[in-house]
């Protein structure tokens, strides 16, 4: 982004070599196996929120143009190199490169993210539904209760209060729309969670202020910190 912009608009020629030549202060993505393209894939595979080409470029220490070129290239590759719609009926199996992958790279509102391919929605949907219950587990309920009364609160803090790891439960609650991300803690940088309006709806109340009062003797977050964090390593 803040580097030289030579040649990035003219197609996408060998981004790896370019990257290796240009950067000396950031990570040298070109020297890694698979090069800059694989580095970009690595990032795309694990990010939860769509990332813009600019964000990706700055993380990879490459120019935006180069990254945009690679993104389009990857998108086409995942689609099986067919230019427009994949040739679905044929499903000819002459090497993997011509076959669409099960995932696709989509550019939505300027952000890029990998999704499972739309054609498999029925299969994926069936898999997702398998074993799902309409009821929250006790662990999920207790975690929700702690978040409701101590929001905004980080996962680490909820873990400290409950004495167990709550990562997967928090994911479930988020997925269920009961809690949401409410920014990051300025000190620790941890994501803070709060309850949603859907939660209020399910509880049948107008705001969290209407939740019944708890005993005043329960430790607040400050107290909890002393109680449970003392032993943290």
């Amino acid at each position, binding site marked *: 982004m803040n580097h030289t912009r030579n040649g990035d608009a003219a197609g996408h020629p060998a981004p790896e070599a370019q990257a290796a030549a240009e950067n000396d202060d950031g990570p040298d993505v070109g020297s890694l196996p698979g090069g800059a393209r694989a580095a970009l894939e690595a990032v795309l*595979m*694990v*990010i*939860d929120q769509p990332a813009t080409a600019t964000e990706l470029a700055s993380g990879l220490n490459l120019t935006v143009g180069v990254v945009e070129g690679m993104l389009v290239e990857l998108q086409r590759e995942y689609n099986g190199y067919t230019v427009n719609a994949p040739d679905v009926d044929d499903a000819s199996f002459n090497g993997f490169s011509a076959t669409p992958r099960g995932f696709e790279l989509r550019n939505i509102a300027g952000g890029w*993210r990998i*999704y*499972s391919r739309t054609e498999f*929605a029925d299969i*994926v*949907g069936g898999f*997702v*539904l398998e074993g*799902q*219950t*309409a*009821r*929250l587990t006790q662990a999920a*309920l*207790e*975690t929700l*209760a*702690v978040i*409701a*009364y*101590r929001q905004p609160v980080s996962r680490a803090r909820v873990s400290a*209060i*409950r*004495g167990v790891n709550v990562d997967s439960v928090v*994911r479930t609650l*988020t*997925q*269920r*729309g*009961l809690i949401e991300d409410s920014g990051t803690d300025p000190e620790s940088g941890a994501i803070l969670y709060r309850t949603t309006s859907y939660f209020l709806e*399910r*509880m*049948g*109340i107008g705001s969290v202020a*209407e*939740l*019944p*009062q*708890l*005993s005043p003797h*329960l*430790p607040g977050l400050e107290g*909890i910190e002393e*109680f449970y964090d003392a032993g943290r390593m």
Partner: protein
Amino acid sequence: MADSGAPAAGPEAPAGKKPGFEVRLANFTGPFDLLLGLISKHQLDITEVALSTVTDEFIKYIKRLQNLGEEWALDEASEFLVIAATLLDLKAARLLPAGEVEDEEDIALLEARDLLFARLLQYKAFKHVAGMMGATLELEARRYPRQVALEGHFAALLPELLWRHTPQQFAGLAEAALKPREAAPTEVGLAHLHGTPVSVKEQAELLGHRLRLGAPLTFRALIADAESTLVVVARFLALLELFRDKAVAFEQLLPLGDLTVRWTAGVEGWSSGNLSEEYEEQQ
């Protein structure tokens, strides 16, 4: 600079790690860990290690850390205590005349020595694999799993939540979850106690010795010199045993009055070998 002769960290200290505690002895200079390694490989005789010097140096080292405001001094100090205590035990065992193994006591001594050594090695083994595990965890932390939120259209497929909690019930859940937990119930740990075991058999011998020499004594008198409740209990149990063996008789004039104990078995009539097995096994 080259001849300052007091390197801050030994050459064995791995780069990037805090230099650990170093020992300086007549016959050894280097990290404490290396000293342990040599002893466990029998390349250095524990009897030739001046433990008091090691301890003095360690105290100096810890003080220096504290002055620097280092937080991990406590960690290192407790670890040092474990190892130093083991070394001390080991050294004591080694310094006793070994000679030839003739009686049971010698064998017991050898066993104790082996056990001490085993304990040291076991501790070291866990320390070692802990280091390996730490390295693995760190390496694995360089892989990030894909765990993205469910795409909207899949999340919409999830069955509608069944929600039957009233706000009051929900508040109850929060109360329970937020209440500071009592220390989790566990057994009363005894492993850290090193109280001398009290033997009922020994106490019986002692009581026998006092009683058979002369006049009847009260229970109060018999426990007057007991240094702990445990000893009182052991003496009481010993008396019951003696009573069962018909070696003593009891007299109590008033309810809750003094209990007088009288020897009835004669001077040679009883030995502690008569004691039933159950107490011997449990001590």
